[in-house]
């Protein structure tokens, strides 16, 4: 008695089609500079954050610009190294520099971040050495840094997992008494990064439940780059992610992810609230993935060049440069010096990658367990004996 129905299979498409304009963030979106870098008037959306932007110095602006350029160059170098066979894979952040630099710069040293796998720009702001990012993609390690040193967790590849780790870490901060004490250098918060696709996962939503219930000092930062590999937004949700938060009892904000000033301001405000004990915020940075999903992907299969062109116009670096120039905060000499620095960074990254020592094979048995483990120890011993056997053979 299987439940086969007698109903004829329906042949019109019942799957919904795109309705959203994926190039327009709508009136709720917080924005401070337009596509040319012109500083915008106050709007209902940006007013709450205007003071934060106004407090920034020209030096802050130049420094942000520098981060954007260096991060893009680092990313381009990762991409190139993959193409040359030095890395197995590279997920490019091209187009998302402002979202990541804005978010990364809003953090304090005592805050802690949980990235996905594309957050090279956040890593940069946390002080992770660029070459450390390469180990994972070169296949020598699953992460080349110690998370506690710079308060930056390893990349997490299983979509959604890190959101709960971030929530738990934030709950730990609450128990440590480093939330809401009023001590600026002590109060801390956590940032958790994921993408538009990531919002569908159970873990993502459970993190909203737990963070909401615990009133945890957590900022959930969703980079909506319009694509989850080949799937557009309308296959992941019906309303944009920033609206998700209110249903869990805390604020959600949409920010122009290509406007570094806006991202910085919104994130800083959210982090300040979190540290002060005001609980979680969800930020949706509306941006675009200009490149392929990763070096393994071929986006021509699923999206039009025209769409990419529209977004190329919204380039976050171009906008920041326009802003600095219009305001007279930077000149060509500055831009050139940043470009030179980028060239140096590229060389440094490339050299470091090529010089990365080949790990010794028996290392794979190390640090599986903290305490001794007979199975692993036996296998390691056998492996070394076996390898030694080969070497003896070869030596003969």
């Amino acid at each position, binding site marked *: 008695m299987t439940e086969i129905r007698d109903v004829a299979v329906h042949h019109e498409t019942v799957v919904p089609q795109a309705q959203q304009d994926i190039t327009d963030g709508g009136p709720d979106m917080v924005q401070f500079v337009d596509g040319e870098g012109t500083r915008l008037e106050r709007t209902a959306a940006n007013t709450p954050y205007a003071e934060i932007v106004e407090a920034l110095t020209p030096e802050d602006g130049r420094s942000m610009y520098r981060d954007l350029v260096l991060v893009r160059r680092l990313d381009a170098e990762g991409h190139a190294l993959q193409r040359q066979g030095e890395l197995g894979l590279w997920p490019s952040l091209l187009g998302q520099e402002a979202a990541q630099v804005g978010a990364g710069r809003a953090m304090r040293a005592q805050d802690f971040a949980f990235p996905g796998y594309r957050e090279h720009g956040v890593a940069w702001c946390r002080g992770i050495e660029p070459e450390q990012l390469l180990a994972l993609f070169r296949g020598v390690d699953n*992460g080349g840094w110690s*998370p506690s040193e710079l308060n930056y967790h390893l990349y997490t590849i299983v979509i959604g*997992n890190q959101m*709960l780790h971030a929530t738990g*870490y934030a709950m730990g901060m609450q128990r440590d008494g480093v939330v809401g004490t009023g001590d600026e250098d002590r109060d801390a918060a956590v940032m958790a990064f994921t993408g538009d696709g990531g919002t569908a996962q159970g873990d993502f939503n459970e993190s909203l439940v*737990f963070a909401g219930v615990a009133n945890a000092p957590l900022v959930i930062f969703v980079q909506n780059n319009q694509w989850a590999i080949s799937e557009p937004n309308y296959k992941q949700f019906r309303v944009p992610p920033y609206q998700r938060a209110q249903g869990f009892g805390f604020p959600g904000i949409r920010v122009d992810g290509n406007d570094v000033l806006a991202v910085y301001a919104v994130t800083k405000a959210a982090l300040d609230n979190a540290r002060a004990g005001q609980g979680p915020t969800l930020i949706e940075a509306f941006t675009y993935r200009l490149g392929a999903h990763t070096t393994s992907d071929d986006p021509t299969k699923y999206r039009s060049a025209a769409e990419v062109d529209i977004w190329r116009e919204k380039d976050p670096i171009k906008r920041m440069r326009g802003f600095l120039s219009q305001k007279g905060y930077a000149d060509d000499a500055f831009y050139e010096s940043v470009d030179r620095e980028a060239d140096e960074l590229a060389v440094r990254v490339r050299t470091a990658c090529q010089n990365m020592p080949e790990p010794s094979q028996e290392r794979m048995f190390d*640090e599986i367990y903290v305490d001794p483990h007979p199975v692993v120890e036996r296998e390691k011993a056998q492996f070394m004996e076996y390898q030694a056997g080969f070497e003896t053979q070869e030596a003969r």
Partner: protein
Amino acid sequence: MAAQKMTLAKGINAGLRAAMEADPKVLLMGEDVGKLGGVFRITEGLQKDFGEDRVVDTPLAESGIVGTAIGLAMRGYRPVVEIQFDGFIYPAFDQIVSQLAKMHARSRGALRLPIVIRVPFGGGIGAVEHHSESNEAYFAHTAGLRVVACSDPADAYWMIQQAISSDDPVMFYEPKRRYHERAEVDLDPQAGSILGLHDARVVHEGTQVTLLAYGPTVKTCLQAADAAAQEGISLQVVDLRSLSPLDTETIDRVVQGTGRAIVVHEASTFLGMGSEIAAHIQQECFHHLEAPVLRVGGYNIPYPPSRFEEEFLPGLDRILDAVDRSLAY
């Protein structure tokens, strides 16, 4: 500290209390672990004494519980997670297998996740579906985890403390149908009877066939040994205690002594613990075996409705039947 008679449930409760007293970083988390003390009352009284920050009633979401426990452990805490029933651990499977088991290796030793996941497991309590599962093999197959099972009040008391002080993640299986059985527990930490967390124990000496069991079936095997003795058959019973790693030294030694082994557990036999133990023994004790290693376990069907569980669970008769078959070789 003198010895004290207590139930297995109370043994865990007392062990948790001792661990919480010894280390303020130890937290308990789970559904209903607070005022209610858990559906089995294992955490009874602990929230009252240690507060809501250390005995945390979580939202009803197992992935969330384990995922946030991982974050708390990264922040320096030692969470002890209660899964309400064996059958409800699966929503957390991803966090356990992808993250909990791998984080130390993923971070090349930079991170440690000293988390204990307590799982009341097994059948025999007349429960509805999903409340009687034995899923230890999934986790024993997962590199990066340690998996143990207690079978009596003393082990309950000491093993839970050892598990909590382990810097590796430990899956801690509790035989729920033995929660209310009582025995003497020596509370003296110097007591000679305390074994390491991963040591097996010979709980009944015998010469003809070795029964290997853990958790709820240890008692069944002891009963089988008594019954067999009346028929003049001498059975040795080993409480494995640790499922990953296995105490293969003890296993090899005892099986080489008798030449005959039978593994007894509630889990389905196909790829259950018995298959690993049999595969190991036939490899390491090949020339000592008088008979193949036999397995007595749950049948290879989903755990049945409770009116069937008496036949489903490995009982005395099935164990003795296997003993006969082993001796017939």
